């Protein structure tokens, strides 16, 4: 992506408003997608799919969802794993109770159910902000943890409280190998990335960002805060709901309510802080970072002959996250995505200083 866009003049607004207005960017993107579909499936091992790539894809989807709410609309939520839980359990119940539904339909319905719950828990945002809102979203987390642990109907009266799923079948395609799951997840993520891009550059996205940047001015120009905030909660929870269903069915296979606890909510927050608030690319970078770091901490010291104990690795992980988050919050609130943009800008002009 390091090139100059000299001589590429836009003669129509349609051309100027494209997703990737610069030709090289478009080719680069197509190249990445082609690699992901055609090369990765043959190169990557099952271990790589299971422990890094597939979790990365699913968590990216959830991070995009959270970023739409926090990064684009400026509303905080520290209980977003709850909406993943709603998606996962909604999908579980749909598959159990209405077996003839296509899994794609199940995903959409699970997303919609999570969206409804998300909008409900978003209502406090109409009156409160910041810390108070954060606490209100924490309530969503605790309520959700409680309901799926206690109300047996949701887990279909499973004895241990943990639910398990059969491999997903789509039309005639059974997603039973890690590679199949990967291909399906990749497709889903691409579609949802495009949708997120479209939403954020449409009038809904502008309403979100206006509300984030200056709520009084947004209201005065005619943007209803109720509409902006609740749609942000809805869309964001929809994304997390879908991600939750995928996490349950394609990553975990069987799970209990703890799978979607506060730790996961915090991980999602860390992803968007480190990756970049208000950036779709940042959601990818942040998710990649959070997925890879623990594994790198486990592998690298062993490779160089100084293995860390599990406890030590966990501690180091916490320390690295902690310091990175403080660093990013203080120095670069727009995260890795911003660093990437700065680097690109520098290279675009290089070697000329201006």
């Amino acid at each position, binding site marked *: 992506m390091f090139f100059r866009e000299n001589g590429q003049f836009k003669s129509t*607004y*349609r051309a*100027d*408003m494209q997703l990737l207005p610069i030709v090289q960017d478009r080719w680069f993107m197509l190249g990445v997608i082609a690699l992901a579909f055609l090369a990765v499936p043959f190169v990557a091992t099952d271990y790589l799919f299971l422990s890094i790539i597939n979790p990365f894809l699913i968590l990216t989807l959830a991070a995009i969802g959270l970023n739409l709410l926090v990064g684009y609309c400026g509303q905080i939520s520290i209980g977003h794993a709850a909406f993943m839980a709603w998606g996962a359990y909604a999908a579980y119940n749909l598959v159990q109770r209405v077996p003839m539904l296509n899994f794609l339909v199940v995903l959409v319905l699970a997303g919609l159910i999570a969206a409804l719950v998300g909008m409900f828990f978003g209502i406090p945002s109409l009156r409160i902000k910041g810390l108070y809102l954060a606490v209100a979203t924490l309530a969503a987390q605790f309520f959700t943890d409680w309901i799926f642990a206690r109300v047996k109907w949701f887990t279909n009266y499973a004895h241990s409280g943990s639910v398990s799923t059969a491999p997903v079948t789509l039309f005639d395609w059974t997603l039973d190998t890690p590679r199949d799951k990967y291909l399906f997840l990749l497709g889903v993520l691409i579609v949802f990335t495009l*949708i997120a891009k*479209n*939403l954020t550059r*449409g*009038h*809904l996205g*502008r*309403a979100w*960002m*206006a509300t*984030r*940047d*200056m709520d*009084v*001015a*947004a*209201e*005065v*120009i*005619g*943007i*209803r805060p109720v509409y902006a905030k609740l*749609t942000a909660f809805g*869309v964001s929870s929809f994304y997390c709901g879908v991600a939750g269903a995928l996490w349950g069915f394609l990553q975990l296979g069987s799970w209990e309510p703890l799978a979607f606890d506060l730790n996961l909510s915090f991980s999602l927050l860390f992803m968007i802080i480190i990756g970049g608030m*208000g950036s779709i690319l940042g959601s990818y970078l942040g998710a990649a970072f959070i997925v890879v770091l623990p594994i790198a901490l486990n592998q690298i010291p062993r490779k160089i002959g100084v293995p860390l104990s599990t406890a030590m690795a966990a501690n180091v992980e916490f320390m690295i996250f902690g310091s990175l988050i403080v660093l990013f919050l203080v120095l670069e609130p727009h995260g890795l995505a911003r660093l990437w943009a700065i680097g690109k800008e520098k290279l675009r002009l290089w070697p000329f200083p201006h």
Partner: protein
Amino acid sequence: MASIPVQAEPRATVEHEAPASRHRIGPVILAVEHVSLRFGGVKAISDVSFEVREHEVLAIIGPNGAGKSSMLNVINGVYQPQQGTIRFRDRTFDLMTPHRAASMGIARTFQNLALFKGMTVVDNILTGRNLRMKAGILAQALRIGPAEREEIRHREAVERIIDFLEIQAHRKTPVGRLPYGLQKRVDLGRALASEPDVLLLDEPMAGMNVEEKQDMCRFVLDVNEQYGTTIVLIEHDMSVVMDISDRVVVLDYGRKIGDGTPDEVRHDKAVIDAYLGTTH
């Protein structure tokens, strides 16, 4: 800060002879009736009434803290007054809300810039057209035909505003990076984008140098002349006020102490006293 207005020679900052094309001043479009506004113990506005006629340029002047900005905030529903009503066209509102004001065609700019810092110039101005954009959430998500055509149509309207305000070179710049004077223009552009009938401007020229002020005066007058937009503006620079306004309302300590043509107001005893009493 107000200079001593009564002694200032009206200096022609802008050539302003009403051109033939100028819209004739029409009937009352907006009336503020017996409005009182308190913040706890502070009486920001006490029983103020005035009228704004269609197509005119009305200036609101007064010393610092007189309640001018609060008055605009009451008109477009940001503050709810304890007493009084707002009449717009033929409808009377006890309770104005920002959304209602915006959808009826009242737009405003802010004394302390209130731009959307994280967005580009184009996007800031485009928000001014959000009320007119109807594509549903699904259409936007997929950006299918109508949604995209709608975006393009409104983008064209925004480009006309960008041309008019002469900020073409900055369209993709995040507004936070623009110098102050240009940010003021973007603020005006965002308000214009909604194609308002009434435009409330809160000190659009504050903090500008003479040249920037002249540009801003020209933009304001052009809007008024070309589109017939009714303008209510708060301004401290008396030469500007005397120059561009058809009528002047004077506030002091939340009360109205003067209302008339610039000439009448300049020679009004109460106004002179208020200004001489409070200026330093």
